[in-house]
C-alpha cells in the first residue's frame, strides 16, 4: 500500500511539474523512479523507454502505464494513468475560467519555460546515453549502442520523423548483433 501511495505521489508531482511533454519528463522519471524511490532498475528503465515507443498513443501515458504495471500490477497501472491525466485536467479547467486574458499569460509562460524545456531535453539525452552507451558494471562503452544510435541518426536525417519501422528494425539489429558478434 505504501508502494502504491509513493507511486501515486511520484506521478502526481511529475505531471504537475513536468513541462515539455514526454521529452522533458524523461530525466524526471529517471531521477524519481530509479534513484529516489528505487522502484525500477537501470535495465528496466531502458525497457520502459523502449516499450513506450512501441505502443500507440501519447508517450508520457505509455511510460506511466508501463511503470505502474511493473511496480504494482494492473492496480498500479490504473492509478498512474489516472494521475498523469488529472493534474492537467484541473490546470486547464482553471485556465479556461480566466480565458479573456489567458493568451498573453500563456505565451509568457511558454517563453519563460523555453530554456528550462531545452535544458530538460539535454539532460534527458545525457541520461539515455549514459544508461544505454555506458551500461552499469562495464568499463568500456557499448559499441552496439553507438552503432544503433548512428543508424537512428541517418534514418532521422533522411526520413525526418521517427516511425515504428525504425524502432522495430533497431530492436532486430540489436538481436542480430548479439547473435553474430556477442554483447
Amino acid at each position, binding site marked *: 500500500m505504501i508502494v502504491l501511495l509513493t507511486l501515486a505521489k511520484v506521478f502526481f508531482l511529475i505531471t504537475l511539474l*513536468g513541462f515539455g511533454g514526454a521529452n522533458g519528463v524523461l530525466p524526471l522519471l529517471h531521477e524519481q523512479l530509479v534513484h529516489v524511490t528505487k522502484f525500477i532498475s537501470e535495465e528496466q528503465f531502458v525497457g520502459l523507454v523502449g516499450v513506450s515507443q512501441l*505502443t500507440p498513443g501519447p508517450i508520457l501515458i505509455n511510460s506511466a502505464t508501463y511503470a505502474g504495471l511493473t511496480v504494482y500490477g494492473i492496480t498500479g497501472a490504473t492509478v498512474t494513468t489516472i494521475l498523469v491525466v488529472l493534474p492537467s485536467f484541473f490546470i486547464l479547467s482553471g485556465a479556461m475560467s480566466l480565458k479573456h486574458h489567458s493568451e498573453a499569460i500563456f505565451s509568457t509562460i511558454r517563453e519563460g519555460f523555453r530554456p528550462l524545456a*531545452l535544458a530538460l531535453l*539535454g539532460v534527458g539525452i545525457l541520461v539515455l546515453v549514459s544508461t544505454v552507451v555506458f551500461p552499469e558494471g562495464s568499463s568500456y562503452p557499448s559499441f552496439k549502442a553507438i552503432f544503433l*544510435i548512428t543508424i*537512428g541518426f541517418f534514418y532521422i536525417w533522411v526520413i525526418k520523423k521517427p516511425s515504428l519501422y525504425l524502432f522495430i528494425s533497431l530492436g532486430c539489429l*540489436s538481436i542480430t548483433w*548479439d547473435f553474430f558478434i556477442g554483447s
Partner: protein
Amino acid sequence: MEEIEKKAFSLKTLFTNFFSISMFTLGGGYSMLLPLYEFYVKEKKLISQEDWDEAIIISQSSPGAFAVNLAYLVGYYTHGIWGAIIAIIGMVLPSFLSMLTLGSLMIYFFDGSTMKTFLFGVACGPVAYYVDAFYRSAVKAFKEIKVILAFMLFIVLIYYFKLPILSVISIALATVLVQVILLFFKTKFK
C-alpha cells in the same frame, strides 16, 4: 447551417475520432497535431484558426502530456466540459489498453535475454530522435543571449550542484509565476 453541423457532430463521434487517432498514431502528441488539424479546422470547421493557434500555445505551456492537453482543448471548444472529458478518455484509452496487453507480455518475457536485447535496441532510437529535436529547437531559441544564459544555468544547477530536477523546475516555475503576476497587474491597472 452551422448549428445543424455542430449537432450532427455528437459526443460519440468525438470519442470514436479521438480513439482512432490515438490508436493509429505512433510517436506521441506532436504527430497527432496534423490529423487533428486536418479534421477539426480544415474539414469540419468546428474550431477557428485563432482558437487552434491559442490551443497549441496553451497545451505547450501547461504541464503534463501535450496530447492530453490538446484533447482537453479540442473537446472543450466543440462540446464544452463534457466534450473535454470524453476527448481525454478517447485519447488515453487506446494507449492504456494496448500498454496493458503488450506490457504484461513484456514483463512476463522480460527475464528472457532476447527481449532485453530487443528493447535495448529500441531504446537507442529515441536518442537520435531527441538529439534531432534538441538541435532544431536550439537553433530557434539560442538567438537571444538571455535564453543561452538561462539554459547554461539550469545545466550547471543539475549537473554541477546535483540539485534534484524537481527543485530546479520549482525555481523556474517561481520566476515564471512572478512574471505572470506582474503581467496580470499591468494589464488590469492600466
